[in-house]
């Protein structure tokens, strides 16, 4: 037994991080964030990630994928979170996973190769407002054409197909079949979200959708948690680096015990929580009985931690940390979406308590 990444996994992370250093530096990140009008993703960076076959990670080999595991996808999510990468990774990866888990042979053959290559963009629609996010809470029905509203759908406007959570399970809806997207003026401009209104859209059920819907949302929780860990770790590092550099009273502010203790608190909240997302992903891959609880705990704990760490990061930086030109607000807003998307930490803790049989 061991709880370590393999050499291949470490190499995968290194490759992604190298790309992000090259193509997602803070200057570029701010440029994408500040784009005029509605938020957009960084098409060039996404193309480079597709080139690297990131969307193919969990797609079966028969459909042009790499047939790897959720832990592999999650460590990539951590790296993307670390760089606050403005790419449609989350929705796309989950759409591919949904079809790989629950799609018919025909659906898989039609969509997976193109999702794996990035030729088409997919996303998932879970939320229905009023904190209804999870399979048991989905009210929309695919019967006789899909109608109703889904909220906080990642990159729906750009997506070629949407995997929609419905009371019957999961349904595929293609672009141009009867829905409209309204981009939300969301705090997190690195990962735009839309309100999608379906008006009798042609929806095709995934045959195994009912059975795999919870697996899909557990995977989503693990990926969000991974993003949160990556972002939180980046914020701790950023704050520590700044404390060593910034001088006041003739010395680096890192010399002041008050600030040192704040930095320790941030690190103490972040570093030991890494294993929560690792375990959530690993359990999903190998220990299915433990996966739902692990996913709920990882999502609750890490997204709460991330948001707090971003607040602490502002404090550690002083005035500059509160400005638009600093990176901190980009991370805080990403932390806000991680916190809210798929349900708040409080809701996931209630779920963990239910799953523990309390």
């Amino acid at each position, binding site marked *: 037994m061991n709880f370590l990444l393999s050499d291949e996994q470490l190499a995968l992370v290194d490759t992604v991080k190298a790309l992000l250093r090259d193509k997602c530096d803070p200057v570029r990140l701010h440029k994408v964030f500040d784009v005029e009008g509605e938020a957009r993703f960084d098409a060039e960076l996404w193309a480079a990630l597709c080139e690297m076959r990131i969307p193919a990670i969990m797609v079966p080999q028969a459909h042009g994928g790499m047939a790897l595991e959720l832990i592999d996808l999650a460590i990539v999510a951590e790296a993307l979170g670390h760089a606050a990468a403005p790419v449609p990774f989350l929705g796309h990866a989950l759409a591919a996973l949904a079809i790989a888990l629950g799609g018919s042979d025909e659906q898989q053959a039609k969509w997976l190769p193109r999702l794996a290559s990035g030729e088409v963009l997919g996303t998932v629609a879970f939320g229905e407002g009023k904190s209804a996010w999870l399979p048991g809470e989905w009210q929309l029905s695919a019967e006789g054409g899909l109608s109703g509203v889904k909220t906080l759908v990642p990159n729906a406007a750009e997506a070629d197909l949407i995997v929609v959570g419905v009371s019957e399970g999961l349904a595929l809806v293609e672009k141009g079949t009867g829905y409209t997207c309204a981009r939300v003026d969301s705090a997190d401009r690195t990962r735009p979200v839309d309100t999608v209104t379906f008006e009798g859209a042609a929806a095709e059920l995934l045959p195994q959708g009912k059975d795999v819907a919870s697996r899909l949302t557990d995977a989503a929780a693990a990926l969000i948690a991974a993003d949160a860990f990556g972002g939180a770790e980046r914020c701790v590092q950023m704050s520590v680096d700044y404390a060593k550099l910034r001088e006041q009273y003739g010395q680096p502010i890192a010399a002041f015990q008050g600030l040192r203790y704040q930095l320790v608190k941030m690190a*103490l909240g972040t*570093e030991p*929580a890494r*294993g929560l997302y690792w*375990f959530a992903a690993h359990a999903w891959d190998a220990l299915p009985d433990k996966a739902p609880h692990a996913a709920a*705990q990882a999502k609750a*704990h890490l997204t709460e931690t991330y948001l707090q760490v971003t607040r602490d990061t502002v404090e550690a930086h002083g005035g500059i940390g509160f400005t638009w030109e600093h990176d901190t607000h980009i991370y805080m807003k990403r932390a806000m979406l991680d916190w809210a998307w798929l349900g708040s930490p409080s809701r996931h803790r209630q779920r*963990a308590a239910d799953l523990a049989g309390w």
Partner: protein
Amino acid sequence: MELGFGAEYDAFRQEVRDFIAAHWPPADGNLKSRDNVRAFVEAAIGRGYMHRSIPRRFGGSEQQPDIGKAEVIREELSRARAPSDRIPGNGLVVPTLLEWGTEEQKQRFIAPTLRGDIIWAQGFSEPGAGSDLAALRTRAELSPDGSKWIVNGQKIWTTGAHFATHMFLLVRSEPDAPKHAGISYLLIDIRQPGVTVRPLVQMTRQKEFNEVFFDNAETPADMLVGERGKGWNVTRSTLKHERSGIAAMTWPLSMFRDLVKLAKEVERDGQSAIKDVRVREELAAIEGELLSIVYSTYRSVSLDVHGQEGETFTTMRKLYMTELAGRMGKLARDILEDDFTDMGGARLKWIERFMISLSMSIAGGTSNIQRNIIAERVLGLPRDRVQGAGA
């Protein structure tokens, strides 16, 4: 990454279960008997279930490090509420001796320590040397013939000194050397006329720690661990390897198990407290921190076993656990409500725990000292000029 208990571990678990069933509870039903505990521990060492990282010739069972097996053993012992391999008294001396002791010291002390025949107290803190430990003033002088050390001075907050047989202590042996360089690490038999132990009463009403006075107490010259004047380095040897890692999770896990039980037992507003949304949510939040400890421990041990870099949790563990214990104590308070102050009632244990969690923030390096150490060693912040936590 492989955390599944595969078929191999199922067989091992059954083996451990069968062993425990055959040996615990003991035949006479006396769970508190020291002889019974000792017999159980010895049998478990014989089977390779306890003291796994300690060589056989020193009384351990010398097993290959294996997180899975260590976890199975911990889980099964905990399930049966059987004795663990926790060393009576302060066991920190064992890894210290393994790393720094002479062959003779190892031979003489380790096995009896594991058996509980020798019980150690730690003599570090002094009235004038708490967080600033290196300011200690207890003196040790070599006798004119060089055969023994003569010790004079006072130690304080010495846990378990009233039942300990021996002490490992820091003394000033080189009075002219700079602060940290004048310290030596000695072993001494404290059942001798030159040593007086006076218990202190703590806020829980318990008497766990003591003042210890040395008045021309003696210990043979070869009871020096490490070199003269190098005692500071010796104290820095840390608990490593599988045993400390997995075993260190035992108390927070069992405290949490008790907390869940308490939340189920206590009734409020006509139902069990665990049905209260605030209690459920806080329990789940605490569980999130507890799981962070578990997974960080798995990772630390794995990194150690595979000789990989990047381990930081060991340095953070004490502070993390201290804060978690405080959080558990506070939730117990919120569950107990009216019963929270009754020290004569059935919930005394939780009132004690509420207080004892505070002692964790002091003993063995205060939480603020832990923060200093983390700031330097984990975050790489410049060394604090005044106190030099990691000196």
